[in-house]
């Protein structure tokens, strides 16, 4: 079978270029000539006053020989009266000098429109801003709660994934603010992220003993409809409680007299009194700071900076003092929120609220927590929210995210021991009071 080869034939024309393009294109399509004439190339920026070059790409068996069908059906048009002479046609390189590198190309082969994929945005999942207002619960919160549960089933089935997949699935389920959702899921013991935030992995299914004289537990980690059904049939599900505003998966409370039996009969780990244990082994704030992820290689002069003054971020020069900073590029696009230690000239990355808490600590701000012994409720000012891992210890005491009351976050079912221990470690002024009565 003879080999098809591509070559170019050129013409000069003086006249309306758009008319030329339209009529040639029309004729090629109408006469079904695209197999022989895949492309038309025309000089750019032509006016009607001067002659210009245009070239037809020819896919044919003989270079220099125009297929008969073209001679009959196309070349009789008036545009082709002034051919550029060449013994064996032109190559692409040869025509480039005549039509220029940036010429107009008309493709008759029904090409697929080029569309680049949306690049994965490099947004840091730890970059939060302070929650400005708490939306009152509306009728949709039941739907939001159902979607939150479904999201956890999806996470549990995948097991692990990228931050990008996490965001896309939030979007598919109409769950807003994926960064906050990620944080809430960590607080509730349902998943973990990698230290740079680029990956997440679902935590294993676990029962966690909550603060109670009875054998009350909560279910954390991976879950599925099937597992919940089995636990119900086993007779241990005590209650299923929606989180406030449906903004996280429901809290499954269990009554478990024999945790070992659960661990033997189901793929569930007995995590014990995680809240108390965590409170006992968490370090003090200074040690916690030292263990934060170190971010090397920052050249401050290459970035724009804002400094946290205890209330808000203010534009500043190159950082010199210990504190929390926002690092932006020259276009003021936020890249990272970091904590700077001037003593060691080290930059740290961590959860946003944790870095803010560190900033307050270093500023000497008086952080406080109020505990109601009767209700076992701990209140913390919203603007003094604790670092995430410490907050997790509070949340795991009940399996419920904190609620808002005025300017305070209220954590339920926290034991006095846990509240006191954590407050000490964080250098928080701890008072017993009537708040959240």
């Amino acid at each position, binding site marked *: 079978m003879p080999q098809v080869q591509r*070559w170019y034939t050129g013409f000069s024309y003086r006249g309306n270029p758009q008319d030329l393009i339209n009529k040639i294109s029309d004729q090629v399509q109408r006469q079904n000539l695209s197999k022989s004439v895949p492309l038309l190339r025309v000089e750019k920026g032509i006016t009607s006053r001067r002659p210009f070059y245009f070239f037809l790409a020819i896919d044919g068996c003989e270079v220099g020989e125009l297929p008969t069908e073209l001679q009959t059906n196309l070349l009789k048009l008036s545009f082709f009266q002034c051919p550029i002479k060449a013994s064996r046609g032109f190559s*692409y390189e040869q025509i480039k000098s005549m039509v220029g590198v940036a010429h107009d190309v008309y493709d008759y082969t029904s090409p697929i429109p080029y569309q680049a*994929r949306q690049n994965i945005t490099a947004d840091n999942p730890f970059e939060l801003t302070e929650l400005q207002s708490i939306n009152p619960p509306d009728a949709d919160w039941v739907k939001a709660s159902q979607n939150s549960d479904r999201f956890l089933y999806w996470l549990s089935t995948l097991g692990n994934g990228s931050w990008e997949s996490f965001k896309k699935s939030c979007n598919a*389920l109409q769950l807003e603010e994926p960064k906050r959702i990620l944080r809430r899921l960590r607080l509730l013991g349902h998943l973990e992220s990698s230290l740079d935030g680029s990956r997440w992995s*679902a*935590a*294993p299914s676990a029962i966690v003993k909550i603060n109670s004289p009875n054998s009350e537990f909560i279910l954390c980690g991976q879950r599925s409809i*099937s597992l919940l059904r089995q636990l119900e049939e086993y007779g241990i599900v005590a209650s299923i409680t929606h989180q406030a505003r449906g903004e996280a998966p429901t809290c499954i409370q269990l009554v478990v007299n024999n945790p070992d039996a659960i661990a033997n009969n189901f793929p569930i780990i007995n995590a014990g009194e*995680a809240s108390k244990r965590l409170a006992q082994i968490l370090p003090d704030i200074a040690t916690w700071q030292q263990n934060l992820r170190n971010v090397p290689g920052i050249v401050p002069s290459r970035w724009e900076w804002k400094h946290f003054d205890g209330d808000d971020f203010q534009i500043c020069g190159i950082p010199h003092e210990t504190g929390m900073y926002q690092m932006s590029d020259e276009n003021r696009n936020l890249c990272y929120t970091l904590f700077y230690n001037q003593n060691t000239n080290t930059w740290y990355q961590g959860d946003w609220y944790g870095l803010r808490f560190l900033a307050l600590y270093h500023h000497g701000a008086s952080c406080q927590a109020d505990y109601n012994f009767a209700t076992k409720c701990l209140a913390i000012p919203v603007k003094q929210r604790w670092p995430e891992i410490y907050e997790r210890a509070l949340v795991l005491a009940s399996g419920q995210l904190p609620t808002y009351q005025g300017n305070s976050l209220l954590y339920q079912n926290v034991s006095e021991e846990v509240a006191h221990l954590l407050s000490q470690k964080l250098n928080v002024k701890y008072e017993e009071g009537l708040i959240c009565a």
Partner: protein
Amino acid sequence: MANYTDWNEALISYFISGTPHGTKIYLSVDEDVIEHISYNFEKLPTNVNWVDDLCTAVKRKVIFEGEVNLQDLKGRDSQGLPKGVAFLCATILAASQMAQEEKISETNYFKRLREILALPGFSRPPGMNFGYEAEEPLWQEWNLWLMEHRFLPSAQRGRGRAATYINYPISQSLLRRTDKDKLRQIFQEKQWQTEWDAQTLFTHIRREVGKFGIHLKELLTENKQRHEAIVEALHQVYEQWKAQGCPTAHKNNYCTWSRHLFCGLYRTEDPFLGQVDYSIYPKQQRGRTLKSVEVQLGDNPHQLTQERPGWYFPLEYLVNGKELENGAKYQITSPDDLDYLILPARDFWILIPDPENGDSGAYASWEAPSLGTPFILLCKQELLSDIERLRDENLLKWSSTPQPIFNNSGWVELQQCMVISQAWDGVFIKNQTLKYALQPTVKLSISLSGGLRVPKIGAWLVEHSPQITIFGFYSNAELKVTRLSDNQTVLESSQSTNTSITLDFAHPGDYLIEATFAGESSQRLVKIVDWNYLEIEKYVHKEVMPINDKYHIFGSVIQANF
């Protein structure tokens, strides 16, 4: 002697083992395949003629009192496998024997089939009076089973009275005995022994197309959906020939598995720092189930574990510039009948987004990019002039300037490449392998995107169905969606190509999506599940949060550091 059930299971296992989901499966059974499969029958004597063994098992199963009775082969066995596959393979043997020796016709085919079944005569054997009630239900069961297991079927009815049912077995054969003999002859003449991967080997064979007979020539030059299957089949012949010690053609008298595993490349990128890494991505051998494979990389042994059908998990071993340039061989320490894991030396790699999970950010050499899929082209700088020529001729586009990788390696990446035109035939570049790799072999392709996907099971959640785009070089195509459970057509309409449409798959189930135009068709399977279907993935220790120097936590579980 292996019995019919043994053969049935072994044949099914052979054709899907090590095969990626979405692959179109051809039951291209011949003597070589039967020899390979016989290795599964460990306890049987080695001097058996295995083709005869299969035929005897089939005869014993289906022949009663001089008639063929296929009733017992309908439906599935206790393991859920279609019962008729071994019989279908016998019909394929008949078809391939016919094709090699004589003209393709119903008469000749049934003559061959009767020989296999030891039933003298020429026409349809007694008991198989009508194709639609005899063998066709077995084909349909096999096709349905494949689709339920996320493979695409290839067997279909023929057009025209005489070819209606014999097209089923005829469509399954790829390489004939004569084709393989000729290939081995070329391998011997050219003294080829290099460790080429399938794509590179294809280019070398393609150059010799003038030396082949009509059938093989057609296979090498056609642009159809079975191109990938043919490339794979050619590579199997080559690898087998090398494993046999590169014998001359007439000395090919035993079959053995290739002694090597090949690998591709797996690319990851830190989304924040932009660091790009390439890992070794081992491929499974088609047709073979290996219980345990261990590879020595540097000082460390690595166990290969299946990540997905056709592939092992990428190894925690980053490819360096030298290995990319020259290829590499890594010693396989177990099992004994494998020698090396081979990273082939290539001039370029085509890396596509994960077909199971496009949001993962990973790119790898899973398969050729389908129409409309942007990919990364990793290549030697010296190929840039060829690639720019393709862009100049409006065949290929990409999004930004080539990015160098591995300082001073001479390799670059081109991002967001996409093939946009079908008119490649007249354009010639220096690197033929690159052209064969990029030139589209089809004119239509179906893409699924968006929705809420469950990558592990290749499914979408009900109420969160994917968007469907028919990519192609036609302005429109006929779209048909069929529910597999009851073969109901859910949708049949004409659609514009290259534009997304949303279909509401209201009910869970398996669906076949077909796009057709001008005699060409493309197929894609989609599974829709509801929330009850989701099962918890077995926990594998991944991300943890450090608490202090002694403990870490994952979720609610506190653990001491190791």
